[in-house]
């Protein structure tokens, strides 16, 4: 994880940017609806993991999904694509 430069002397010659999780910050804050996984319904098919644009779903050892709410933008693709409707979108708490 790169640090944010403070002074001119901290800068590289030309903008070279470091690979960083959250390059755009905690994008979970963009969410209006949050996906919630019903583990008992989930068949471990990994479709939600494959289709997540934000890499915010981790495919666990047993292939079940774990959603990273720090970064999930709440697009709802996972819920829409889940073949057994094991993911539902619920309104974010205020």
């Amino acid at each position, binding site marked *: 994880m790169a640090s944010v*430069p403070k002074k*001119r002397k901290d*800068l*590289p*010659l*030309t*903008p*070279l*940017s*470091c*690979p960083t999780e959250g390059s755009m910050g905690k994008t979970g804050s963009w969410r209006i609806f949050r996906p919630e996984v019903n583990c008992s319904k989930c068949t471990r098919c990994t479709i939600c993991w494959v289709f997540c644009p934000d890499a915010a779903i981790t495919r666990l050892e047993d292939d079940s999904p774990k959603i990273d709410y720090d970064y999930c933008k709440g697009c709802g693709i996972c819920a829409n694509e889940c073949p057994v409707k094991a993911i539902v979108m619920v309104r974010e708490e205020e």
Partner: protein
Amino acid sequence: MKRIVDTANHLAGYAAKAARVKVVAAYPITPQTTVVEKIADFVESGQMDAEYIRVESEHSAMVACIAAAATGVRTFTATSAHGLALMHEALHWASGSRLPIVMAVVNRAMGAPWSIWPDMSDSLSQRDTGWIQFYCADNQEVFDTILQAYKLCEDERVFLPAMVCLEGFILSHTYAPAKLPDQATVDDFLPPYKSGWVLDVNKPYSHANLVSPEWYMEFRYMIQEAMENAKRLVPQIDREYGKCFGSEYGGLVEKYRCEGADLVLLTMGTMGSDAKLAVDKLRKEGLNVGSARVRVYRPFPMEEIVKLAAGSRMIATMDRHISFGMEGFLGSEVKASLYGQEDRPLFAGFIAGLGGRDVTAETIEKVAKKSLRMLDMGKVEKETEWVDLRE
């Protein structure tokens, strides 16, 4: 060392070979073509271990050089006029990327109308792109300056691209004697390619993504600092080159019989060579004239100009260029350099040699005599005068 008779374009090719350039990307345009034809010969005959990418445009030529330099190899290209203009945005990208690309610019006038003859409006239009600009006065200097340019551009205090400019036909197609140093001597002078950064799968970066107003200015300031560093380094590298190879060019500005001269004629490119003939003739006539040739136009040698001005009563510039609605860039920048001086010499600017109009030693003599008349009168009739313009 070998002595040959060849054109400046071919010598540019020899220089790229001597510099052990690894990637050349170029598109043909008159009068640059024989540079890339020479390189194609070198590459295909195995004399040069390089990739020659036969791109489909000059824009692509510059972009391919940028991408190759960022991938860690020494690059070279060459172009002229409209080809250079087509590269324009990529020129900014190269300097912003701080990549030490060297390019031969075979100066040619810009259209419309079509002209294949020389003037400097092509390269001078690229003044503000963050490229170092050299201007050469003979074939040998073209070869030498390309090697000097790599040395300069790959210095960590600089890391900027450079254009080595030579006037089309006048140099590009003129055969003249030149010395080609041994490869070992060149290798001693110019170490293997060095750049400030390189893309690497083991240490991945994204280069040149969005930079907010918070940081953009600082990156620009660093380019300005690098230009200032280049200004200090050019004379050093020129001297070092002279020690290795025997030819030296006076660093940023080549001066000729300027000591105690009433009038200094300031030129760029081959005019600086013919000006020496004019100066010799005028001196013989008892006229106190010297000449100076701006060899490095970016960074602009302000301090050298101030020094020249301090020792003379008048400066006259000869521009192979016009900034429409103003005057020649050289004239403007000489005046800008002198603004802070209390005791400024008289100034007159001349526009000459556009679109290949021949500038002979006699033309230069005429300009000098006209300037001297102004000096006698103590005033300049017309700040910018076009030389040999039809009525």
